[in-house]
């Protein structure tokens, strides 16, 4: 089986230590994480981890069952890239001098659909949201001018299909109370 990119979405209770438990599952199998993002979800008190890994489908299927085995995990899903809508965000901190002195950099900014977040006498900050290759393309264009700072977020993704977490939560509650 060939490796490919999978986006793993994990819906969880908000518990200290869970991050450790989930990352340990990957550590034990010596799988590198491409990105790992934690955030609130559409459901009150339910958190969501979005993890990107490059593995085989058999590996990701087994990882999902191990993740779901954790007490605080409500449900975990995995999806291929074409089953999700996903984005990453990057911030570029660049000397303000360049903005005024390098005409070409203005063209790069315009063509990339990046947004200027702030401008000070010393630096300006450019924000670019998009797929990894779009962010990397912009990086390649700006890097020769000199970057004061660069940071990129992990992937965030929503699926094209519904995930019905609220309904899944109801089945947990109903089963245990009865």
């Amino acid at each position: 089986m060939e490796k490919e990119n999978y986006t793993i979405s994990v819906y969880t209770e908000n518990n200290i230590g869970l991050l450790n438990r989930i990352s340990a599952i990957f550590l034990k199998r010596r799988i590198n994480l491409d990105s790992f993002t934690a955030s609130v979800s559409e459901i009150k008190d339910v958190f969501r981890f979005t993890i990107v890994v490059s593995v085989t489908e058999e590996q990701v299927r087994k990882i999902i069952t191990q993740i779901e085995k954790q007490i605080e995990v409500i449900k975990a899903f995995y999806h291929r890239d074409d089953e999700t809508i996903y984005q990453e965000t990057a911030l570029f901190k660049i000397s303000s001098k360049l903005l005024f002195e390098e005409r070409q950099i203005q063209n790069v900014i315009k063509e990339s659909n990046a947004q200027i977040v702030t401008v000070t006498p010393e630096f300006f900050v450019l924000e670019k949201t998009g797929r990894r290759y779009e962010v990397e393309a912009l990086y390649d264009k700006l890097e020769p001018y000199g970057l004061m700072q660069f940071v990129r977020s992990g992937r965030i993704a929503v699926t094209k299909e519904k995930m019905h977490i609220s309904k899944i939560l109801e089945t947990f509650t109903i089963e245990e109370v009865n």
Partner: protein
Amino acid sequence: METATQTVTKETTMKTERMTGAEAVIRCLLAEGVDLIYGYPGGAIMPVYDELFKYEDQLTHILTRHEQGATHAAQGYARTSGKVGVAMATSGPGATNLVTGIADAQIDSTPMVCITGQVASHLLGSDAFQETDIVGISTPVTKWNHQVTKAADIPEVFAKAFYIARSGRPGPVLIDITKDAQFEEFDFSYEPCKGIRSYKATPPTEPKSLEDAADLINAAKKPLIVFGQGVILGEAEEEFTALIEKAGIPAAWTILGLSALPTSHPLNVGMVGMHGNYAPNKLTNECDLLIAVGMRFDDRVTGNLDTYAKQAKVIHFEIDPAEVDKNVMSDVAVMGNVKHTLAKILPLINKNDHQAWLQQFNDLMEIEYDKVIKNELYPEKEGLSMGEVLRGINEETKGDAVIVSDVGQHQMIACRYAAFSKSKSNVTSGGLGTMGFALPAAIGAKMGAPERDVIAIIGDGGYQMTIQELGTIFQNNTAVKIVVLNNEFLGMVRQWQQLFFEKRYASTEMTNPDFITIARGYHIPAKRVTKREELKEAIKEMMTTEGAYFLEVCVEKENNVFPMIPTGASVSDVRLS
């Protein structure tokens, strides 16, 4: 509560009492029906120990001589009693000393709650005296763990801990409590946990899976069952026996499935795996249907997965979804507690008998008997064999004793040759293979089943890893029978060195102390046997002596355990010599 999992609770008005967190710990244990715990005090858990003093008429604390001993004793207690074992220790080294036992309990699905003291919450993360991140350390080897920093959280965390430890596929849970939380006062009330929002202890059983499994069983010409500890943990012995008898299916056991089915049952065809029996290993690669019941296809069972039962359809009865298709792909997975799923499938199964197929097992058993078993149980050479010691024990106990074995050659011999007439009789370290397990586990096993004879079978290596627990046995007058099979070697490693490392016996020969003197130092009656003619009488004396007894049997130095499947080989490549 901001840090623990959401619990499913009913709205109730509960009576509260003002008390400290330390007292609440004791009250939680009592509310969960705990009357016995194992542990070792220290600075960060002293408030709880102080409260124990007050409750000593309701809650017995067994002071082991090392925290590892506390966990193994709690495991032994859980394995024979079917209850949750409890172990307690202080922070830092006390907590880290628990880790081996916790890891052992995790891989062998033993319900256990471990309680550790922790430095005061304002010191957390400051590298304070005896501070260690035991929650972080134990994360990969616990079913759940949690750090309590506020006394008010104690009741809910304990209720959850016991619920998680004993429900579904059981396992160990660790609760770490800061010292200030032990001193803090709050209004205590207790309600047992009835469910956790994100945790489905037992997965639902799909009716279709039962029908599909029944169809495969009814159509099979050469079915083979491999059963594991799931049968014992699910208390499904009766349902399991009913199924194999109705369908006439030969049943082989994994090391932890042992004793779920009486040794003498005509459909019991022995052990599978590396040192398992010849017939079930060979015929795994001939059966047309492999039915796994409450077992997890450990690599010691399957050998090379590329050649494991490839010709067979596979049905997997399992409670843990993560075990299905993990190592062996199943054609039908029947999820749920095997007590329920086996009961549900029984009416769908046709009465059958597979005489010709069973005869194949009998034929291979005869070959194994002639080439291996006869020489092990009735040796003609001068040196004592481990197998004849087990035969002597069987003859004396009639298969009614609990056998606790350590790890090594003697473990494989004990599991291969000990006779069992009832369930929960085999206590051993299966998945982790922890040397030093048996002596403390035997203490717990005896306390978990005080009416039964408990015999620990230990090698000279493993014995010296936890030999200090003789002190626990002496102090508590625990009537365990200790049999050390002394070959002055780390026998299993030596066997591998002989077979796979050209007899280079690197650091496996042991110069041992006088074990008899040591036992007598702890006021435990002791005897050493070096000759065959002394053995029977010595075993009789051991079993008829009231209280603990130590028996050292000096066995042949360089004997090997066969059959054997070399690592990475196919189960059908099992070697008889």
